[in-house]
């Protein structure tokens, strides 16, 4: 066995980590190698002399424990105050996020909502529909088809109010009672104008 190997195993032996099967080889080497015997003795002296003396009196440990207790209490108090602060910050963050989402949805709706005004919806089709409407005037059957399709398109773009609300306003017995003389006069004028133009559509 080489001295380097023997010395590594001597260190393992001092640490209680030498495999039992290796012990005979180390002992055999030590019998014939004075240098390694000297090395082993030196290691043993260092090991014995390295022990840290526990020279602290009980008062030392009592003071140590009091100091530690103060630090633990301070850490616990700090933790107790930090948790609600974190919770408040978290709630604020959720509220801010919700406000941002609502604002975004509002902006989107304002910019991109479906345009339901009938007059605006007709504009892109005006040039295409004009010849068709002219042809329909000369052909009653075509006129009926066009009329049906146009009304269906209008209903789709701008649905009529539900039947209940129409019936309710028409049946309001107090509607005419609430009008002033001037308002009645204006309505009469409009009806006369319409009659001169050929009546309501």
């Amino acid at each position, binding site marked *: 066995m080489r001295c380097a190997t023997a*010395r*590594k195993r001597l*260190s*393992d032996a*001092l*640490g*209680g*980590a030498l495999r039992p099967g290796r012990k005979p080889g180390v002992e055999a080497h030590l019998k014939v190698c004075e240098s390694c015997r000297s*090395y082993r*003795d*030196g*290691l043993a*002296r*260092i*090991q014995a*002399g*390295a*022990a*840290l003396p*526990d020279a602290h009196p009980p008062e030392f*440990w009592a003071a*140590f*424990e009091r*100091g*530690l*207790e103060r*630090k*633990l*209490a301070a*850490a*616990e108090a700090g933790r107790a105050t930090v948790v609600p602060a974190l919770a408040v910050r978290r709630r604020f963050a959720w509220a801010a996020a919700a406000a941002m989402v609502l604002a975004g949805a509002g902006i989107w709706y304002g910019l991109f909502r479906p345009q339901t005004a009938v007059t605006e919806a007709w504009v892109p089709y005006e040039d295409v529909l004009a010849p068709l409407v002219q042809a329909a005037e000369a052909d009653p059957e075509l006129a009926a088809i066009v009329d049906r399709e146009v009304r269906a398109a209008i209903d789709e773009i701008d649905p009529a109010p539900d039947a209940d609300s129409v019936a309710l306003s028409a049946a309001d017995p107090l509607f005419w009672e609430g009008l002033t003389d001037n308002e009645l006069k204006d309505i009469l004028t409009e009806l006369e104008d319409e009659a001169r133009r050929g009546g309501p559509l």
Partner: protein
Amino acid sequence: MDERPEELLVEEARKGGREAFAELARRHERRVHGVALRMAGNVSDADDLAQEVFLTAWKAIGSFRGGSSFYTWLYRIAVNTSLTFLKKRGREKDRAPFDENLPAGAAGRGFSRGPEAGAAMSELAARIAEAVAALPVHFRVAFALVVDQGLSHAAAARVLGCPENTVSWRMHKARKILQARLKPYIEEVRS
């Protein structure tokens, strides 16, 4: 004296029991202080360091799952806290390059030859302490765990998170360095 088993104290401490943790600290304070003293090199810093170890452990006890024993976990915190402390202090950086052929104390305290045996032994203990303090930090940590704390190489490896063989080689290197530095004083005691 509190005779509750350590597992019970750990469980109570995990649930926030400060009194249970204080009892755990009382049981382990000497060991932790020993590691801190070996790493810091003086009692004052060791006190602060040991309290920092327990404070860190108290803050982290909720995450301790019992995968290792409590003392292994505590030693690991002690080692990590010590290494961080040494980095902060910059002692390792400031220390002069190690020369294993230079006898310990040669540049500082003189070594008086021919003292009586008892005086020579306490002189040797002081030289050993100086030489251990001058070891590279990873060798010193291994030395603190194996020699000071009496951990097996396997247990020290669990604390350090390295293979057992690594601990064996670090201990061998550390002993070789100490032997080289302390040879004159060992021979003096022997004679």
